[in-house]
């Protein structure tokens, strides 16, 4: 800080910096005009402080506030709502700085600032956001401390230290509250609007998959009892898409529940799943989860329902991180009905009329050549394997010049990735009269486990097919495996193009990027496990570890009560200890005085031991008593007297005192 700044200038500058830090991450989320206006207001305030100009009149600010409200209404459609609220809070915070006349006005700024910090969590709760939070809160608290220092020019460092000190005192309480505060479900409304986008609910043929390039972690799996399937067999079932309009695949509107929807016979795998906020309504789970259609599954704050297509569907997008204990039965131990013809199969045979005539004719011809439906399926897969199909993430756009996009793919260009192969495969099967549908989800995982957790990324997003045969029911088929076996067999994520940034890392050391990413993800995993996923279940687990049998809310309450009691008693004891007399000497001298007075010697309490000794001698007291008092005088006030430092010296002094006291008592008795 330059010494030429006045206190007011410096404090205002600091507050502007803190507010900018709090608003910063939101600038990308509010409309452009709002971001510009907020920055402009901050800059204006800074300029006014720098030039020592007076603050603008209130009506000017009121005008700006009204304009901001109108702008928010126009940009967001409504004034009440999350996004328009965010815009307004950002602008109000910047405006309040221009309306701050006394340092006490700063309180409004602090409270709005804390809100803005919390709002950030709606979008991300990563470790970096936590660090940013700490910095913002520290800044706000430092400004709060500065507002309570009315005199002179206190250093920012002192204020910052005081803020940190106070916060540090509060940390144990924070940890306790965090661990013990009961986690209940949402009081109203739905959580989420947050998180990155996971698999979408529908799939357009020819859409470029942006997910494929997204290397962020989608979910993590850990076997609890049993073993996770190898990457090639690891299929996480997401939305099932049955309806096709020639362009997009959508979930079937209403599906009849078939008989024998799920017949289980195999072994069971227990596992744990940690889901990032993907905003999917379907919870991706390992194939196949036991649970008959219509069953429900209650998780923390949300209840899932099993559909006829054997997916778990939530009543709202899952915008929060979830940690789920789940069970899976390997596909070998599962039979999925109906086993005989059923009405529910009708939708799985429908094709948009008049589209893709070449593929339909090709399929009909092929079906006529082979003897049976299973042979037909094998023949289609064999065709994909033998014909010059290429697996690529950049196949270009299909259906641009004709509505027959799948014909283009199947016969002309033959470039594509999982979506294309699964779509064409299903259309071919349907053309031959075999019920088929598309299943989207995740397939494969990272080769190495992260501290026991298998990592599945967004780039593991996959689409495969299911077809139905009488007698056996629904079967999985992954046509992508025919063209790109390495994608499916090894379960590798789709490879992404190398960016400039990463290229620079690779130039230094090819393993550096992977190493750094690994480290960051490991930290993120810990963060997920310990902080973000600390929910009711983890709370009860903690209680269990602390020795509560079958923990529930009441044991949580008991623990909280005991903790509060211990804290209260502890602080009371601390206060007592603090308030006690530190120096033992006054009470010691008082004891000596009482002893001397009991013998009838005219000693006064304020006199030193030397005077007492003289008094004792003058009144004919025994010489040893006078000697002892002289020794005490020398000990306390003689040239060798030392102040006592530390508990060791205190202890030694207490020993010496006890010895002296015994000596005095002996002398008095004699």
């Amino acid at each position, binding site marked *: 800080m330059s010494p030429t700044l006045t206190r007011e200038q410096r404090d205002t500058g600091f507050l502007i910096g803190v507010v900018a830090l709090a608003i910063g991450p939101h600038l990308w989320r509010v409309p452009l005009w709002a971001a510009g206006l907020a920055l402009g207001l901050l800059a204006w305030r800074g300029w006014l402080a720098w030039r020592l100009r007076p603050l603008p009149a209130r009506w000017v600010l009121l005008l700006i506030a009204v304009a901001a409200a109108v702008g928010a209404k126009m940009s967001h459609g409504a004034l009440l709502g999350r996004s328009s609220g965010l815009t307004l809070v950002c602008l109000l915070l910047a405006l309040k700085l221009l309306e701050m006349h006394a340092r*006490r006005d700063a*309180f409004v700024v602090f*409270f709005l600032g*804390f*809100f803005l*910090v*919390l709002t950030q*969590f*709606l979008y991300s*709760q990563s470790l970096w956001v*936590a660090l940013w*939070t700490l910095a913002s*809160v520290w800044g706000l*608290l430092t400004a*709060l*401390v500065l507002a*309570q*220092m*009315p*005199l*002179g020019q*206190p250093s920012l460092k*002192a204020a910052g230290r*005081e*803020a940190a*000190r*106070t*916060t*540090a*005192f*509060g*940390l*144990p*309480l*924070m940890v306790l*509250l*965090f661990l013990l*505060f009961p*986690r*209940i*479900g*949402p*009081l*109203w*409304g739905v*959580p*989420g609007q*947050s998180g990155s986008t996971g698999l979408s609910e529908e799939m357009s043929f020819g859409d470029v998959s942006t997910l494929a390039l997204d290397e962020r972690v989608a979910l993590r799996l850990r076997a609890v009892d049993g073993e996770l399937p190898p990457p090639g067999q690891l299929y996480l079932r997401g939305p099932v898409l049955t309806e096709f309009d020639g362009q997009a695949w959508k979930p079937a509107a209403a599906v009849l529940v078939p008989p024998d929807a799920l017949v289980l016979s195999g072994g069971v795998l227990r596992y744990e799943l940690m889901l990032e906020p993907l905003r999917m309504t379907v919870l991706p789970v390992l194939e196949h989860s036991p649970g008959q259609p219509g069953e429900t599954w209650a998780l*923390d*704050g949300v209840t899932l329902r099993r559909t006829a297509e054997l997916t778990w569907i939530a009543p709202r997008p899952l*915008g*929060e*991180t979830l940690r789920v204990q789940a069970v899976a039965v390997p596909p070998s131990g599962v039979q999925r009905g109906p086993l005989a013809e059923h009405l529910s199969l009708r939708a799985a045979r429908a094709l948009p009329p008049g589209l893709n005539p070449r593929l339909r004719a090709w399929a009909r011809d092929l079906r006529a050549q082979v003897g049976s439906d299973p042979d037909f399926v094998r023949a289609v897969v064999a065709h994909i394997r033998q014909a010059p199909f290429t697996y690529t993430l950049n196949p270009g756009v299909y259906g641009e010049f004709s509505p027959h996009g799948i014909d283009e793919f199947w016969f002309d260009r033959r470039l594509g990735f999982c979506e294309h192969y699964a779509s064409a495969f299903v259309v071919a099967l349907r053309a031959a009269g075999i019920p088929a549908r598309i299943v989207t989800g995740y397939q494969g995982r990272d080769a190495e486990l992260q501290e026991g957790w298998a990592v599945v990324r967004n780039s593991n997003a996959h689409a495969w097919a299911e077809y139905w045969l009488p007698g056996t029911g629904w079967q999985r088929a992954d046509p992508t495996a025919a063209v790109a076996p390495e994608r499916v067999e090894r379960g590798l994520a789709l490879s992404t193009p190398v960016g400039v940034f990463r290229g620079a890392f690779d130039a230094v050391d090819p393993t550096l990027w992977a190493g750094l990413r690994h480290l960051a993800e490991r930290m993120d995993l810990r963060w997920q496990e310990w*902080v*973000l*996923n*600390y*929910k009711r279940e983890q709370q009860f687990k903690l209680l269990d570890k602390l020795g509560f049998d079958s923990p529930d809310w009441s044991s949580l309450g008991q623990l909280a009560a005991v903790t509060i009691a211990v804290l209260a008693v502890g602080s009371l004891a601390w*206060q007592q200890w603090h*308030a006690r007399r530190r120096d033992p000497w006054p009470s010691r001298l008082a004891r000596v005085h009482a002893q001397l007075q009991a013998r009838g010697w005219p000693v006064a309490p304020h006199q030193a031991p030397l005077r007492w000794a003289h008094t004792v001698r003058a009144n004919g007291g025994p010489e040893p008593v006078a000697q002892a008092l002289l020794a005490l005088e020398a000990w306390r006030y003689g040239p060798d007297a030392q102040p006592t430092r530390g508990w060791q010296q205190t202890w030694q002094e207490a020993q010496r005192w006890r010895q002296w006291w015994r000596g005095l008592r002996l002398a008095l008795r004699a």
Partner: protein
Amino acid sequence: MLKAAQRRWQDWWKARHPARDAQVLTQRNLYIVPTKVGAAFVLTQLLLLVASINDQLSLGYALTFLLCGAGLASMHTTHGNLRGLTLSLLSPPAGHADADQALTVRLHNPGRARFGIGLRLADATSDSLAWVDVPAQGLAELTLHWRAPGRGLHELPVLRVETRYPLGLFVAWSYWRPESRQWVYPAVEAPCPPLPAGKAVGHEAQPVAVRAGGGDELHGVRPWREGDGLRHVLWNKAAQQPDPNAPLWVREWSAPPQGQDCWLDADDTLGLPDEQRWQRLTAWVLAADQRGTDWGLRLPGQALELGQGAQQRRTALERLALVGQAP
């Protein structure tokens, strides 16, 4: 009934805050409550908590509890900002009833640096705080002013020391009843009327005063005061001053002392209202003390023998402060 309760409360309060000239602030005499800002802070936290619950934000819980912890810890630090501090009173100087009385408080700090400590009279408005910072292991002084209700030997007003440091969420305060008393002399009548003639010389003696001009002997020069004639200003000296705002100087002449023993008698002021009588006598006492000769003071029912010097003046002024008041 109410009166009795009030009196009991007053008694209890006085027992809790015994009058002392040095007061150590401890657990026993410190109070602390949340401020309005603290209440707003709690409200903010409730909102943050509801938002965290509704959106199931783990980090939101963490932020809420971090602020909660910091807020509660600030109760401790706010209390600690006063605890252990010793307030002591410098012996209060005597003053006159028409001016504010100065009260200098010294704050001794045996611990770490303390900021934002405010002092005020207990019955003053809450925004009239005088602020002081006390350095670590050091002391700071602060002078407050108060208006005494009149002349006399007054108990000092109850002082209130408070702090909101560091976060302003709590206010900790204590009351302090200083034990010392402060002399408040009667106001000084201005301009000073001529001194009464010394009794020994008789009624025909001229009033004696040291004033600009009008004497026989040149006494010296002194700065100009209101009432000095323009003829006595040393204009030569003023013209030589480079600074136009420099004070003017006047010649001072002194009349030869007429009576060695000047008696200032309350009877000489008869006819004036009571308070004005004491004010005039006070002015006379000060003027007589200036003269450097012996003087005495006669008040109804008492007399101060002839004498001079600081002790004589103080005794006279103290008697004037108390005259006519119930002991």
